[in-house]
């Protein structure tokens, strides 16, 4: 089991944002996590990535890096594309000894080629479009060859073509590296194209579990409401 989450609980300001969530993702498998804004999807990723501490439960991931592709790319805006992608390789001891400048340039060029952005090494993040930034942040995340990859809304706010590109990378990287991946998304297209399994969160709890196909034809009220994007159903937008 490459990612195993058991009875996870996270409390913010006395409120259970994640309430007893359990799931697992095998190597070479993609799990899609769907749900309303504020249902705790990003929090789950941050817990797995160890950016915040859990209050109860267990998280296990396989040895090696846990990479994260952030919702708004989170590129280092004072560094150019090359330094962004090579960041971990340049700053971490175990890699610094391993690669010289020439090798670094090769690796970065190869990652940029993977995301279809050859030759933009010297550009700065502010000079790139949103979709390009996403693709660069994708390249930056996979540069250490992680065994676990987390994507936070990788296709939100992108045009359909850019979305398809990103979806293709997610699948390609999964097949090449056999990493276990989690994709947080709102888009049915991303679920259909990338995911092997889906879980749906509502108010910090899992309300549906299944394959993308099962989700489409499910009689589960939550899944039906989500798929049909209906206002009627068990899930209600809570007024703030």
């Amino acid at each position: 089991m490459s990612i195993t989450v058991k009875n996870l609980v996270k409390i913010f300001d006395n409120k259970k944002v994640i309430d007893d969530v359990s799931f697992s993702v095998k190597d070479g498998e993609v799990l899609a996590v769907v749900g309303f804004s504020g249902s705790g999807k990003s929090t789950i990723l941050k817990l797995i990535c160890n950016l915040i501490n859990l209050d109860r439960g267990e998280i296990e991931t396989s040895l090696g890096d846990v990479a994260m592709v952030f919702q708004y790319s989170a590129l280092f805006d004072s560094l150019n594309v090359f330094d962004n992608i090579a960041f971990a390789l340049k700053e971490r001891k175990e890699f610094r000894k391993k690669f010289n400048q020439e090798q670094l340039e090769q690796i970065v060029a190869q990652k940029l080629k993977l995301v279809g952005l050859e030759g933009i090494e010297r550009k700065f993040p502010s000079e790139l479009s949103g979709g390009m930034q996403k693709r660069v942040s994708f390249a930056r995340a996979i540069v250490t060859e992680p065994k676990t990859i987390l994507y936070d809304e990788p296709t939100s706010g992108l045009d359909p073509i850019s979305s398809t590109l990103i979806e293709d990378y997610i699948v390609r990287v999964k097949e090449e590296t056999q990493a276990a991946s989690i994709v947080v998304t709102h888009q049915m297209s991303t679920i259909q194209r990338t995911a092997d399994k889906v879980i749906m969160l509502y108010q910090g709890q899992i309300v549906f579990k299944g394959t993308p196909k099962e989700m489409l034809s499910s009689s589960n009220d939550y899944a039906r409401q989500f798929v049909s994007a209906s206002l009627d159903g068990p899930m209600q937008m809570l007024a703030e």
Partner: protein
Amino acid sequence: MRNFRLYFKQSATYQLYLLFTRQVNDFFTTLGDITKKTADVFSYIFKFEIDRKAVLEQSARFGVSSLPITLSIVGMSAIIVSMQVAGEMVKQGAGNYVGQLVTMLIVREDGVIMSGFAIISMIGSSLAAEIATMRVTEQIDAMKALKVDPIKYLFVPRVVSGIIMMPLVVIVASVVGVLGGAVASSIVSGLSYRAFFESVWYGLYMKDIQVCLAKAVVFGATIAIVSCTCGYNAKGGAKGVGIATTKAVVWSFVAIAIWDLLFAAAFFF
């Protein structure tokens, strides 16, 4: 009883109490965090895990970019003091002591504290805003996810450059201050440069210079650590960056004023 509690919770007294406890709470949290970050930063420094190139870059920013403003603030305060006292002192027959007075003032207090204020407004605020922006745009999280410690990558070069550059800035600013004092005295009271500079030597004690440089090192480190920490703990969006920057400036001002008091108490009493 329940009614009473309800009313109490709506009362101005309770609101003030909440505001007060929140402030106190925030004060001690911030103080504790600054202490912890200081320990983390120095543990890297003592292990010599310092990126020299980054230190060089930050030093250029810390020293060179702030120099015009530092020089004008220290220089002007020396000129103002000279203008105020030189005429009177010469009239009273104490012209021979003007240089000494100005020098003592600058070396003991003015040079380093005024440089500190200039550095806080130029460098401290920009460090805080920079790191706060990285925080609210998740760049700090991205760094952690890539398993690079932000303390090592962001804090250490900035603190080291503060420690190296602050004494240099203070030395240059103090020299310029004394020169400015000489020119101002000469213009205001007709005091000769020779009389001024002869008395400068009487105002210079080795101990004063040592304490001045020690203060500069401590101020440099303090400003860098406080500003970076306030930026690092920023929350929310653009507003959070603003709050963090203000906090960094206020905390740095108060911190170096307290350090100055401690130094004065420790070395001159």
